[in-house]
C-alpha cells in the first residue's frame, strides 16, 4: 500500500467539492435490481473526467460504477473517498482491475450500512426529533424546527465531507482502521443511548389515560388512572409499546399497527375507557 511518491494525475480540491456536492443526490435514481448504482456513478463523474482523458477509459470507468450498489447514504461518502483513491492509483498505472475496485465497494457497503443505520436513523434522528418536538410543544414554536434542521444538516454535511476526505487520503488503510471494531463500539454505544432514550420518552410523550372511576364503599370517584400512576406512571404506554415491539418482531407490518392503534383508540373512547 505504498503510495507512489509522485502522482501525475490527482484530483483537485474543486473536484472533491464537486463530488461532495453531488453526493447529496445519491439516492435519487433508486431502482430495484441495482439500487443506488446510477447515484454512485453520478457522484464519481467529476473524478472520471479528471483522471481519464481517453473516451474509452471514461466509458469503462462509468460502466464499472454502474453495477449494483446500496449502502447507508451518508456512509457512501467514506466509500466514495476510498474508491476515489483507488481510481487515482489505477489512473496512475497501478494494476487494479474492475473486480478489485468493485470488491472494495461491496465489502464496505454491507457492513457499514449495517452498523451505521442504527446510529443515524435509530438514535440521532429520533432523539433530535423528540427534542425539537418538545421545544415546539412546550411553547417555543418555531425554535423546534430550526433546531432540528440546523443540527441535522451541520452534522450530516460535516460528516460527509470528513468521511470523503478521510477515505480519499487513506485509501485502503481505512478498512484496516475500521477492522479494529471502532465502528461496532460506536454502534453499540449509540444503540444503548437510543434504547435508553426511547424508554425515557415513553412516559413523557405517549398520551394514554384511563377514564373509569372506581367506586368503593368508603370512597367515591377514585380515578383508575390515579391508582395506576401511584403504581408506575406511564405503565399503560409501556405495555402498549412492548406489545407493538412484539408484533413487529413477529413480522406484522407497521402500517397495520398504526391502523390497529387507531381502531383500539376509537373503541376505547366509545366504551368510555380511554380519555
Amino acid at each position, binding site marked *: 500500500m505504498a503510495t507512489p511518491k509522485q502522482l501525475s494525475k490527482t484530483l483537485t480540491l474543486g473536484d472533491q467539492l464537486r463530488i461532495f456536492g453531488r453526493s*447529496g*443526490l445519491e*439516492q*435519487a*435514481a*433508486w*431502482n430495484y435490481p441495482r439500487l443506488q448504482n*446510477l447515484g454512485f*456513478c453520478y457522484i464519481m*463523474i467529476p473524478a*472520471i473526467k479528471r483522471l481519464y482523458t481517453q473516451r474509452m477509459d471514461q*466509458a469503462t470507468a462509468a460502466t464499472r460504477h*454502474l453495477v449494483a450498489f446500496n449502502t447507508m447514504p451518508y456512509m457512501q461518502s467514506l466509500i466514495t473517498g476510498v474508491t476515489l483513491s483507488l481510481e487515482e492509483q489505477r489512473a496512475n498505472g497501478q494494476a487494479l482491475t474492475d473486480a478489485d475496485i468493485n470488491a472494495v465497494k461491496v465489502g464496505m457497503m454491507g457492513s457499514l*450500512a*449495517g*452498523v451505521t443505520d442504527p446510529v443515524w*436513523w*435509530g438514535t440521532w*434522528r429520533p*432523539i433530535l*426529533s*423528540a*427534542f*425539537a*418536538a*418538545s421545544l*415546539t410543544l412546550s411553547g417555543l414554536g418555531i425554535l423546534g*424546527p430550526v433546531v*432540528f*434542521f440546523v443540527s441535522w*444538516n451541520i452534522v450530516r454535511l460535516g460528516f460527509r465531507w470528513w468521511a470523503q476526505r478521510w477515505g480519499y487520503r487513506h485509501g485502503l488503510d481505512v478498512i484496516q482502521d475500521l477492522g479494529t*471494531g471502532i465502528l*461496532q463500539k460506536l*454502534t*453499540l454505544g449509540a*444503540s*444503548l*443511548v*437510543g*434504547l*435508553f*432514550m426511547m424508554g425515557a420518552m*415513553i*412516559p413523557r410523550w405517549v*398520551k*394514554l389515560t384511563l377514564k373509569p372511576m372506581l367506586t368503593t364503599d368508603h370512597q367515591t370517584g377514585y380515578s383508575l388512572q390515579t391508582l395506576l400512576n401511584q403504581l408506575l406512571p*406511564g405503565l399503560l*404506554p409501556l405495555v402498549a*409499546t412492548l406489545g*407493538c*415491539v412484539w408484533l*413487529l418482531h413477529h413480522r406484522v407490518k407497521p*402500517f397495520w*399497527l398504526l391502523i390497529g*392503534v*387507531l381502531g383500539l*383508540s*376509537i373503541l376505547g*373512547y366509545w366504551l368510555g375507557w*380511554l380519555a
Partner: protein
Amino acid sequence: MLIIAFLAGLDGVVDEWQFQQPIVACTLVGLALGQPLTGAALGASLQLITFGWMNIGTSVAPDPALAAVITAWWVAGTAQLPVEMGVILALPLAWVGQLSTLGLRQLIIPLVNRADQAATAGDLHRISRLQVVSAGLQGLRTLLPAALLMSLPADWLTAGYHLLPAVLRGGFRVAAGALVVVSFAMVINTMATRKLWPFFFLGFALATDQRLSLLALGMISIALAVLYVQWPNHTGSGPNSPTGKTPETTDDEALDRELDDF
C-alpha cells in the same frame, strides 16, 4: 407551496436535508400560509409519530413527505381542521407516499438502462442528466398528488369534519396521542438486542421522575454508553477475556438484517 412539496418529495427518497420530516415540512407550509405556529404545532405532533419510519437496506417505510405537506395545508389553511385530525389524515397519505416511492423505483428502471448505454458510449454528461431527471421525478412524485389534493375545496373538508360522529372525533383525539407507540416500537425493534434491553427499562424508570429533563437523561445515557463500551467483560478489549463478544454479535445481527433485506 409547490416548491415545498417538490423538496419534500425529493428528500423523502434521498434522505439528506430532511425537508420531508413533518417538523420541517409542516412549519414551512405554515409559513407559506402565514400560520407558522400552527404549522409547527402540527409538525411537532406528527414528527413524534413519524420519527420511527426509516428506510433501511432495501425496505421502504411509509413516506411522511406528502402527508406532512397536505395535512399542514388543511390544518393551517382555510379548512382549519384541528391538529388531531391532521395527524389521523396523515396516515393514509403516508401510505400513498410509500406506494409512490415503491412505484417509482420500478418506473425508473428504463431510465437507468439508458444510463448504461450512455456509459458504454462514454457520454458522461448524459449520465449526470439522467440522474438529475430522476431527482426531478422524485420531486414530482409528491408535487403532483399534492397539487391534486390541494385543489379540494376547503368547505368540503370542514363540512366533512363536522359530519363525523362525536365518537370518531373523540377516538381520533385519543389516537393522536397514542400512535406514538408505533414509532417507539419501530425504533426499539431495529436496535434491541438481549443485552441492551435493561437500558430501555432503566431509561423508562428514570424518566418517570419529572425533575430530570430530556437533556439530563441524554447525559445519563451517554455516560452509560461510554462505560458499557469500555467495560472489559462486555466488549472484550481486555487481552484474555472472551474477546469481542458483544460487538461481533451486534455486527452479525446487523449483517443478517441487511441480508434479509436482499
